[in-house]
């Protein structure tokens, strides 16, 4: 089961303090749906406001990206440059 670590403190507000958890999804889109189902509002929040790092690679707005069975998933705030 892919393991998720949320950085930054925003996610904990939805999950009641939990910053690490396992999910079952195989794509980012499925992952967001799962988050929304388990903690209402979180899926939308993560989709709009956060970037998702899968096995070290950062994805922003990439709902089709695949999440492997043993993937390390990290949620970080979206990054803007200058």
């Amino acid at each position, binding site marked *: 089961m892919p393991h998720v670590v949320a950085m930054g403190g925003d996610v904990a507000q939805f999950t009641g303090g939990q910053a690490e958890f396992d999910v079952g999804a195989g794509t980012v889109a499925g992952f967001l749906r799962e988050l929304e189902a388990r903690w209402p509002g979180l899926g939308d929040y993560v989709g709009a*406001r956060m970037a998702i790092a899968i096995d070290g*690679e*950062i994805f922003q*707005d990439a709902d089709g990206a695949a999440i492997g069975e043993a993937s390390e998933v*990290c949620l970080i705030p979206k990054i*803007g*440059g*200058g």
Partner: protein
Amino acid sequence: MSDVLDRPEAGEGEGFKSVGTRPIRPDGIEKVTGRAAFGADFAMPGMLYGRIKRSPHAHARIVSVDTKKALALPGVKAVVSGADFPDLADELVEGGEAASSMRDLAWNVMARAKALYEGHAVAAVAATSPAIAEAALDLIEVTYEPLAHVIDVEDAMAPDAPLIHDHIFTAGLDETPKLPSNIARKHQFVRGDVDGALGAADVVFEGRYTTKAVHQGYIEPHACVASMGPDGQGQIWSSSQGHFMVRTYCAKVLKLDISDLRVTPAEIGGGFGGKTTVYLEPVALLLSRIAGAPVKLVMSRDEVFRATGPTSGGVIEVKLGAKKDGTITAAEVTLKFQAGAFPGSPVGTAAMTALACYDIPNFRIVGWDVVTNSAKTAAYRAPGAPISAFGVESAMDELARKLGVDPVDLRAKNGARDGVRAAYGPTFQNIGFLESLHALKQHPNWHANLGPNQGRGVAVGFWFNVGGESTAAVHIGEDGTATVATGNPDIGGSRASMAIMAAETLGIPVEDVRPIVADTASIGYSMLTGGSRTTFATGMAVVRAAEKVIENLKARAAKIWDTTPENVEWSAGKAYCLDTAKGEQKPLTLKGLAAQSARTGGPISAEVSLNAQGAGPGFAAHMCDVEVDPETGHVTVLRYTATQDVGRAIHPSYVEGQMQGGAVQGIGWALNEEYIFDAEGRMENAGFLDYRVPVASDLPMIDTVMIEVPNPRHPYGAKGVGEAPIVPPLAAVANAVRDAIGVRIPDLPLSPPKIRAAIDSKAG
């Protein structure tokens, strides 16, 4: 972990013909002859001239705006204020790089109930001449009720601080506060047990550092021409870092349909993040709609300083814990950043990058985003990262002294490498941090002797680099030359890199490729130029479009040879027939196929839109030698060395240019630049005389070393390079000054009076 010597030198690609070479940039002639058209160089028939009236108060209620007298002045065709703009709900919209609050943006473009900083736009006019527009401004009667203001970040956080907005309740706390404040958000990143590890450490160092607000300092002021007809169709010519962003933001602020706006990008005279938003365009469009004529709106330098986003000034508190052998076991970083009049300082990215160069098992990074009565901050090259790096890298320098360890060795020992979990979360792969660091010691400058009053400082830095949405089109002309169209304004020479990548892929000379930047109606959507993304993401789209063209060409060759595309190979600009059943077939050139395009299926063209992922992060290591004049406190930069993991230098000259330009902006930030406010909250140095950016006589040559650790996710291995170079210089310079005078000055800029005071305090 490989040694730096195993990595190929910049330029030694795998037999590349164009990648890694230094052709003259395709838009170069226009730029050196003065023919290139920047934002203020455009005119339309019947054009009016716009001017903006700005608040003289740092914080005030706007009681009334009376435009009657201004409207009555002959030659004035339109006058607007906040009441003429639509009301917006608080909505987050993608358009720039991170989601922006559209309501905040709209209120920044034109004040509503309150003026929130000196320079905040409160009204605007359009008239038949600049002189009449200027005169009309004086006839607009604005009644203000001045309020107490606050600019210093810690003052703004105090419980009794003047309240700037009554709808801000600090986000990111365990419990949302009942009362509003100026503290918009708390960011927090935690790993392990930092308190326990600090308690157990052999050596602890603690330091407090401060920086002042600095401006991106682009030489070209904001400028646009906008034209909106009675049918609601609008055209904008403007210099920005993203014309699609301009379209989106104007549509949102004025509640227009995106498809009704067409934005043509002018050449842009510098941005560095400061032109990733809009100030003038919605105002010019509205004036134009009312006046029934095009409106030109250009900022003066004074307006640029007072009314456009600088980056934050801030406080950085750092505590480091280490074992005697130099292993850093714990780090605590607290950041407090000015956001300006609306939330959204770069404290979040500052927090994420603060420890990104290191492998530290226990840390806590807290960042506070605080509104202040100063211009809303805008992105500035690696937003936030230079500020947190200044604190962390100054503290690292002091820790090295405390441990008796060489400053480069301390960083190498604790440095990030492949397989390390980054401080901001994901695991690093294909990074070149240690290589960049080692390159410093291998540079001849490392062995330069230091004399009296001279010192050396080193510092490192990190930036994420992003990918994002880009569209590129490749069209083959009937003569076999190629046009490459993208939607990204060229701020640093990216056209040259697009041409190189297209030429390399197609196998044709780079002189046969013409890159252009197309307007919003002529190319698919592209995210703006920023975040060090263009060579990576737009380059990827260019390569994919060129690859589609090649597939198309192979299909045509196959038809000509009466075989299948699998039997056709494309190499060095030609199609080769691999089907032995067809006998000896002369290869078909791109030129030859183009000439026959009508007969083999029609025009040869491909457009690719993608959302590029897999941007490789940038690591930089800098070394600075200075001499301090003990009598005047003046600092001379003697030598400056910048090393960086650049992935692959597509056009090495422009990669070097990014490294040199970023380093020099950082040197200015360290030594001279700052916003100076008077007691009323008005900027005192809103011009280039007293806002002192580096000039040619301040600097030596900037020596660069490009390390190539190719990014496997980009067709040619490119990583973003533009932002990492501004991250190390603040501390590199500060550490050098510390080395030279023997005293740490923790507050930037290191202006001569501060240095004199530090020297005097040491003597006394």
